[in-house]
């Protein structure tokens, strides 16, 4: 498991390949890459600044990975999230999951992203023509995370 919170850019292809590298028991790798859009909530976005809560962020991500490991038979989970200044088109987040069979990797990747979006202390501030604005949390993200609740 690797959890990285960094200002530096990353190469999603390299991250995806690294997931499989050391373990030939892995039969399936699923990767998600999130990018900075140039448009959000009806306005052009010229870039954004990503703030986080140093100290808590890594712990929150580790807890999400721990929970994914309890739910699915995973062989590896990597999370990489950028902070600081980002331009449209740049990768902002990578989540990769590896398992013997595909369903666990697909579902766990989806789960990790849903929980990251609602439980990890990151905040986006976008640059728009009207000036910078903090992105508001979305109810749809809360709903997406809620579907993993155990009944």
């Amino acid at each position: 498991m690797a959890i990285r919170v960094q200002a530096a850019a990353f190469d999603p292809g390299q991250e995806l390949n690294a997931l499989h590298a050391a373990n030939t028991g892995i039969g399936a790798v699923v990767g998600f890459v999130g990018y900075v859009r140039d448009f959000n909530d009806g306005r052009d976005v010229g870039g954004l600044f990503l703030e986080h809560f140093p100290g808590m962020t890594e712990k929150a991500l580790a807890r999400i990975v721990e929970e994914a490991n309890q739910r699915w038979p995973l062989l590896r989970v990597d999370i990489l999230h950028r902070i600081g200044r980002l331009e449209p088109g740049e990768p902002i987040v990578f989540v990769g999951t590896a398992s013997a069979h595909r369903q666990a990797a697909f579902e766990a990747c989806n789960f990790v992203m849903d929980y990251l979006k609602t439980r990890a202390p990151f905040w986006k501030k976008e640059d728009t023509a009207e000036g910078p604005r903090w992105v508001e949390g979305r109810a749809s993200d809360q709903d997406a995370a809620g579907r993993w609740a155990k009944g």
Partner: protein
Amino acid sequence: MIRVQFFARYREVLGLAEDRLAWDADLATVGDLREHLVQRGDLWAETLGERGLMCARNEELCGLAEPLRDGDDVAFFPTVTGG
């Protein structure tokens, strides 16, 4: 002593990244601490009083019913928007 941190929009609107409050047994929960801070004025009520508020105690997400102890590190922040 309780350390309180504010992040993102809350920090900007309040003009404050962190504050320290003397320990008070009346502040039994994180919700009590929130209520105490909301009483400070309009800006406090507008930010910390909002629905989407999230909080953490000692760097773990928690609910408003979370018990508070002397020496705790509490954080209040708007709904997270990473990913």
